[in-house]
């Protein structure tokens, strides 16, 4: 194992257990996320990838365990986390255009009662520009393609200007152009010193896109630099015997 200097952790998860009814979805997880890196949460369906993301964000109740983000619980400093939910989890018929959705990224900074003004609108348009969506700013979100919807979410994340980004399957069901836009955005965020955690399901592209990986299957299988944790043994433990078909030769 290579010796690396001690780096600050963006996220520290201790003894985390999450269960629906009596069925454990995450079982006694200890895991750290390195600050300033692109980290993928990887595992088969039902491994608890999304649940881990949501448990870190306090969106699902924990049975046990603790989570700290930059050394503090999330509730003490909410401005530091940006969130990109699964595309299918929101109602795209909602009467809003792309610009409205990006503006939502800045609601946290505005706080209660204050409304977004011209400054916010300009910033939101810049963020849309960054993901190549400025011309579609006034388009109702239901009339965007899946890839365009995903890019609106990315623009919203950029507008949040957080230290840590949590993204749930941003690559799910998008076209090649959007996949490239997502990757570029992730790298841009890393270059700006941000930490990004992404739920990812494609083993083949993971080593190219990410620095670190958390291999998960209800229990933690391995975590750390992706070329160290992506061993045949770990992948076998995560996916079972099917793993060798999942990795491109």
């Amino acid at each position: 194992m290579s010796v690396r200097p001690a780096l600050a952790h963006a996220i520290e998860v201790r003894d985390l257990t999450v269960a629906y009814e009596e069925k454990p979805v995450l079982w006694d997880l200890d895991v750290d996320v390195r600050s300033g890196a692109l980290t993928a949460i990887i595992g088969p369906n039902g491994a608890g990838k999304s649940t881990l993301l949501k448990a870190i964000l306090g969106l699902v109740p924990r049975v046990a365990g603790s989570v700290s983000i930059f050394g503090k619980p999330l509730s003490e400093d909410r401005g530091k986390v940006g969130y990109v939910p699964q595309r299918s989890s929101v109602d795209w018929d909602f009467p809003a255009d792309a610009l409205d959705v990006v503006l939502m990224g800045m609601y946290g900074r505005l706080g209660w009662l204050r409304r977004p003004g011209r400054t916010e609108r300009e910033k939101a348009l810049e963020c849309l520009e960054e993901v190549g969506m400025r011309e579609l700013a006034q388009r109702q979100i239901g009339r965007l393609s899946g890839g365009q919807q995903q890019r609106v979410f990315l623009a919203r994340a950029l507008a949040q200007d957080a230290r840590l980004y949590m993204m749930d399957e941003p690559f799910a069901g998008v076209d090649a152009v959007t996949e490239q836009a997502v990757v570029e955005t992730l790298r841009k965020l890393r270059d700006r010193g941000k930490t990004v955690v992404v739920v990812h399901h494609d083993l083949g592209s993971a080593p190219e896109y990410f620095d670190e990986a958390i291999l998960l299957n209800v229990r933690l299988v391995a975590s750390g630099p992706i070329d160290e944790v992506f061993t045949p043994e770990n992948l076998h433990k995560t996916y079972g015997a099917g793993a060798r078909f999942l990795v491109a030769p």
Partner: protein
Amino acid sequence: MSGALAIALVAIVAGASCGLAGVFLVLRRLAMMSDAISHAILPGLVAGYFFARGPNLIAAFLGATAAGVLTVFLVETIVRMRRLKEDAAIGLVFPALFAIGVLLVSRYFANVHLDTDAVLYGEIALAPFDTWNVAGRNLGPQSLWVLAGLGLLNAGFLYLFFKELKLSTFDPGLAEILGFRPGLLHYSFMTIIAMTTVGAFSAVGAILAVALIVIPAVTASFWTTRLPVVIVLSIGIGAFAGLLGYGAATAIDVSISGAIATTLGLLVGGSALFAPRTGFVAQALLRRRQRWAFAATALVIHLAHHRGTDAEVEESRLDHLQAELGWSSDEVNRIVRESEEAGWTIREGDRLVLTETGARAAAGRLVADRA
């Protein structure tokens, strides 16, 4: 204030207030919740009567609102336990609460006249007789003041928390992370919905109350995708239905509540049929257009596929197209016309020849699908 004016005003204000309240309820996919609340308030009314030891407007209002909020709480608890979906939970909760109300009425208030027809259909025509008198001055129908107050309450809440409501409706996860307390917001909003339902219920009856809350918002969303416009339209549609329904009822001498509800039904039905883009007719036309355009694309791809091959002459004959692509001769004519209008093909005798534009369209389509 004349009786006719009083009734018309009550109808208009009820429509406007309920129309406003319904917008976020419909956006949150909780339209049925207003139905549940309107029935579940019966035990609340009884409880209010019980605690106030007699008929008391404020006690009844508080009791009914509490029962409405209890309905929301019970439905959400059942949903959170992951046993049932929201609509099923609603169907479970409100008949139970309504039944408890009926039992309480028949057990303790058997001698009180409680007209079930009046509960369900309301009697807006009685509005002028129930006036609000302060220091000997007649200030007009009580229900008019109640409904106007509720309208202002809804407007104030929406004005103050518009951004927060929008975010917590569209993306409750982000709202939670940013510290906007979507749960607290939800219960505040549902309390106001319960109060609005109770107020409308006492003025116009349960069924019309539900119709006035749900239908204007649904109707408005057929016509626009801009939320502020949805809100303004919804208020306008509610008020308009109140006015038109009242006018129609007096003109042809039928029930006022029935005429208002029918007006609402016609408005939403008409919108569902004829709204641009989202209406049934527009959708059907769009589908037809897309079908022919798609078939024309399939035609040019077929022609491009065989271009420059030995089979080209055979494959591009019109009668061959009919046989091979499985289109009737009418369909072939229609599709060929479509592709000629697009400048994709020209006719040469009994053959179709691909233009350069057509070849590019075919190639472009194949590349686009592969990406």
